[in-house]
């Protein structure tokens, strides 16, 4: 029932989502920390930019990424001058697109968890002579762990479900940019409804159980994460 092309698409999707989740945890953590602590005027604008993908149609994001990463766009000129070529139609192009696309799903739960900590644990740690880095790694990170779990799960699941951006910058290359959602779209457009059902049903079940697991987890650790 599942063809080799379908399996390749599933494998590629998992690879993409894993790569994006790891990178987003690394990039998102400092952003979330800054957003949680700052009193700067910039908090509003930066928070809004981070949240943009929540409200923007993915085609808008995809179209701008296609233009910006193309040979005449500013990102494209940068990557070309670094000898990397242009990013559209490559796996790493999808990674970059997904970083933007899934950013709020990772930053916001971590930010919420860090804000929920309050000042007190940090002040206590400071009186015990913990330096700023020490406080971050031994106090903030462990206490905000539920936020990180939520962030990782949502970032991963949201990247798996990505479609509009991939369609715009992917180019439908087997094993490189043809992810599950695109494969489903192809099946439907080619009137291969039986194959579409297998993948679409799998996607539905996956998403449901991921969210079910996440909400179970959040019940154990209330007051944290994204709701």
């Amino acid at each position, binding site marked *: 029932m599942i063809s080799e092309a379908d399996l390749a698409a599933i494998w590629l999707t998992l690879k993409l989502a894993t790569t994006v989740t790891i990178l987003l945890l690394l990039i998102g953590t400092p952003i979330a920390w800054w957003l949680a602590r700052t009193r700067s005027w910039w908090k509003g604008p930066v928070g809004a930019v981070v949240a943009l993908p929540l409200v923007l149609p993915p085609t808008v994001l995809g179209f701008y990424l296609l*233009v910006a990463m193309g*040979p005449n766009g500013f990102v494209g000129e940068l990557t070309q001058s670094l000898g990397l070529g242009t990013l559209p*139609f490559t796996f790493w192009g999808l990674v970059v697109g997904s970083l933007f696309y899934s950013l709020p799903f990772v930053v916001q739960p971590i930010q919420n968890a860090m804000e929920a900590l309050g000042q007190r644990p940090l002040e206590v740690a400071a009186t015990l002579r913990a330096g700023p880095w020490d406080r971050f790694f031994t106090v903030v990170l462990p206490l905000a762990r539920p936020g990180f779990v939520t962030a990782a799960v949502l970032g991963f699941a949201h990247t798996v479900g990505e479609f509009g951006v991939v369609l715009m910058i992917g180019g439908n*290359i087997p094993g490189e940019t043809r992810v599950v959602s695109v494969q489903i779209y192809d099946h439907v*457009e080619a009137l291969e409804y039986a194959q579409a059902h297998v993948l679409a049903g799998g996607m539905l079940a996956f998403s449901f159980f991921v969210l079910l697991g996440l909400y179970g987890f959040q019940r154990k650790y209330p007051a944290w994460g994204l709701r």
Partner: protein
Amino acid sequence: MRVVNGFIAVALCCLLSGPALAARIHVAVAANFSAAMRDIAPQFEQSTGHELLLSFGSSGKIFAQIQHGAPFQVFLSADQEKPEALEQAGLGVPGSRFTYAVGALALWSATPGFVDDTPTRLISGNFNKLALANPKLAPYGVAAVEVLAALQLKQVTEPSWVMGENVAQTYQFVATGNADLGFVALSQIMHRGRIKKGSSWLVPPELYSPIRQDAVLLQNAADSEAAKALLDYLRSDEIRGIIHAHGYATK
């Protein structure tokens, strides 16, 4: 009093005859024909008084929507298979099918002078990516692969293929410069009988099977005079002129 009576008579006249005179026709149009149809629609509305409601999309999606009860009355497909399948499924009116346009394929680059009027650039392999519509989904993609096979370039070029879900997306890949070359519909790069920008090779029709685009009257409009009038209108000489100017042939 006579004036009032006159008003009533006029009002009654409008009420009774209005719907019969000016109907609203919901037309589903394949994406590649959207520019031509936007030119044709105002002329049709002006000369008949009917109103056209146009929905654009890929033929595959429109086909699925019609199967599930979409309220379209006329379907202008990008191929012949889908109108035929609709007729066989009892969703299209038998005998209403005809070819309203025959698509032409062009190899196009957004850079002026990149392509001359020959396949030289394609044969040289001197380009980063070659964009084409997904042959599994789009008739223009099937034609593109036929051309590559005829030139014995299919295997050599395959690693540099990038595929659009339809010919509109393929155009976008080339227009934004992300792909140096692409097989697009001539109708996309032609405006009023001329190539809009960039450079192109108009692929000789003997290198691919004709891209016949069929129209079909749908079952829920079987009795609609207005919908039939639209189909006749598409076959008129005047409208054929517009269709030609958009880069299509007619049968």
